[in-house]
């Protein structure tokens, strides 16, 4: 297996860990963290392809990751704010119980 | 419904508060501050219920230093209670002695020579300097100064304690006043020492204030913190600088005009907001007035006996009756209520301890404030646990 393939396997494994977490857990915070892991796995792909591409000059992968991290930070902030808002309304953060649109 | 609506009377018992907060707020955290918390001024304990850092309930617990003071007073001779009064408010033994002596003198109809009255005023005002300086130091320690103001305060306190020691033999437990005068006549050297202390104290206060009074952090921390309304203060029987910081003009030195105080020219500083900053500033200004009183008293002290020659030391049996003697102690009105049945021991002996009564409104001042504020509010009340728990 080449280094690139190793990186990609690593990234897909991380993606699946995040996916399983997001699907299997019912705690909203853990679901959010799972999604963060999936985003990180995607970033790993960008870096891996940039690192092993035949012509890495333009540093596009790095740019992508920088923007991706910024978006992930925004997502985490909004997501966790939502978690707190949900908690404020229904006194717990179990995903199944957050089933009302209003309030 | 806001936090301020949770009046201390409405929030009887934890269950009510908990019910309210389960609906509207996050979790409540119940913290037991004390009795071995670094800034509870001894062994005071506050059971504080917190919403985040905001206090929604505060239950003071005291009695860890209870020594049966009043019952002891009923089983000890009149003279024998004098050293015990030293140990009430162990920073201000001189004023405690004086208040007790006044009560007994009232009971027995014992006159006091003029020189002794002057010496008593001098010692009481020096005690006020001592107490207020220490309090400012402790308050700043509670505010988080790393000991600096406290050490300056203690440096000056040391000079005062040296004076006390050379006069009465002990630094803190002076046991100096007697019924009908004072135990020892202060020498000319001693009076000169007191004069030097008085003259130098203004300079120390200037430096102390330069360090603290204009400090933005201190102002931000203390202004608007722990506000006490004059109505509540009067209703709760709060006295002393605590009361005057709310703007109520009540100073026993003026209202009772006991001793030789009417002969001295001094003013009573009053606060306007009743917050921690006012309490601190009123004390600082009071110290400056005390210096004025001291200068006048030291200049005008007459010669003469220090003890009434007819005063009895031993076998002292006042006729049956009752008396309440009070003075303006540094912490507030310190009073002793005595009932005599003609025996060598008082039939009833009761202390009106200013720190204890000033402490009763702690919860009202702390509600809605943060933990950090609770500490400085407690500090600004100026308690000594020896007096609170008795």
């Amino acid at each position, binding site marked *: 297996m080449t280094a690139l393939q190793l990186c990609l396997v690593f990234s897909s494994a991380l993606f699946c860990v995040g996916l399983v977490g997001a699907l299997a857990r019912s705690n909203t915070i853990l679901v959010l963290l799972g999604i963060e892991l999936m985003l990180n796995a995607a970033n790993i792909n960008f870096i891996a392809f940039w690192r092993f591409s035949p012509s890495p000059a333009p540093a596009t992968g790095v740019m992508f990751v920088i923007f991706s991290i910024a978006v992930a930070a925004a997502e985490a902030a909004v997501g966790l704010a939502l978690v707190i808002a949900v908690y404020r309304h229904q006194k717990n953060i179990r995903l199944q119980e957050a089933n009302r649109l209003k309030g | 419904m806001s936090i301020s609506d949770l009046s201390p009377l409405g929030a009887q018992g934890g269950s009510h508060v908990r019910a309210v907060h389960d609906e509207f707020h996050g979790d409540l955290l119940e913290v037991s501050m004390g009795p071995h918390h670094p800034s509870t001024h001894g062994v005071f304990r506050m059971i504080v219920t917190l919403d985040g850092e905001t206090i929604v309930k505060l239950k003071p617990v005291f009695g860890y230093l209870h020594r049966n003071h009043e019952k002891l007073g009923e089983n000890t001779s009149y003279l024998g209670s004098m050293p015990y009064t030293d140990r009430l408010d162990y920073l201000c033994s001189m004023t405690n002695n004086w208040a007790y002596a006044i009560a007994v003198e009232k009971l027995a109809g014992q006159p006091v020579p003029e020189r002794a009255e002057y010496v008593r005023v001098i010692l009481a005002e020096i005690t006020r300097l001592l107490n207020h300086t220490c309090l400012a130091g402790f308050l700043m320690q509670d505010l988080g100064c790393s000991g600096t103001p406290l050490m300056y305060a203690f440096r000056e306190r*040391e000079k005062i304690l040296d004076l006390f020691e050379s*006069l009465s033999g002990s630094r803190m437990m002076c046991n100096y006043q007697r019924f009908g005068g004072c135990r020892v006549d202060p020498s000319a050297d001693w009076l000169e020492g007191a004069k030097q202390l008085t003259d130098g104290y203004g300079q120390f206060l200037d430096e102390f204030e*330069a360090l603290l009074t204009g400090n933005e952090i201190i102002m931000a921390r203390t202004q608007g913190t722990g506000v006490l309304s004059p109505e509540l203060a009067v209703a709760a029987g709060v006295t002393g600088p605590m009361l005057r910081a709310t703007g109520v003009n009540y100073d026993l030195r003026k209202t009772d005009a006991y001793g030789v105080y009417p002969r001295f020219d001094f003013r009573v500083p009053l606060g306007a907001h009743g917050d921690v900053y006012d309490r601190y500033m009123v004390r600082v200004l009071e110290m400056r007035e005390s210096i004025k009183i001291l200068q006048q008293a030291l200049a005008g002290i007459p010669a003469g006996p220090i003890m009434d020659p*007819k005063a009895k030391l031993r076998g002292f049996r006042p006729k049956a009756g009752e008396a309440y003697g009070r003075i303006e102690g540094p912490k507030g009105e310190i009073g002793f209520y005595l009932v005599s049945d003609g025996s060598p021991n008082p039939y009833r002996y009761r202390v009106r301890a200013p720190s204890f009564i000033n402490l009763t409104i702690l919860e009202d001042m702390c509600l809605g404030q943060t933990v950090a504020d609770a500490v400085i509010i407690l500090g600004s009340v100026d308690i000594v646990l020896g007096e609170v728990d008795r």
Partner: protein
Amino acid sequence: MLGSGLIQGLAVTAKNLVGSFHDPARYTNVEYPEVKTKLPEAYRNFPFLVTESASDPMGTLRCVACQICEKECPPQCIYIEKSKDKKPDATGKMQLFPAVFDIDTSVCMSCQICVEVCPFDAIKMDQVFEVATTSRFEALLLNRNQLAKPNTYYHSIHPTEAAEVDGRLAAERKAAEEKAKAAAAAKAAAAAAPKSATAAASATPPSTTPTPKPPAAPSAEAPKPPTPAA
């Protein structure tokens, strides 16, 4: 402007930092075990019993076991047992003496009331303050052998007060001798009326005035062992 008060505070601390190196008014510390400040004359710690002679402390105790101090002591830390026999005191009068005189210094609160009420100047306040021991009970309970200290020691710690007391005692002794002479001449009865507490009280308070008052020796009344008040 924001920060001016802070800078003022910094200036004060800087002044103290520098001042502590050269200004003795700021740096008032004494490093205790090596350097000790002079104790003021009035300083008091625990009581001791005055004896007339250092060589025979038990024989020359001024204490006559009248038990007034035991009664007046607020924390009741004094325990006295009277002797069965009598021995002559300084004035040559036969007196009782304490067979047991214990002070529990773990209870004593150094209030000096025993000194004030003593009509015989027999108990005085000591200035020894380094009294830490390893044993909580035995070592803090002082018996009369440990408590007895000679008059010269009393002079060394409270010179003014001791001089006054000695003068008064000498005057009393003289008065007693004169009175005894007069009594012998007049063949009067020996018993005197129980003396009032007032005389003792006005005579006892020690004074630190630079000009000690001349001992007001009541020539009419020689101090007698007071009949303990009920």
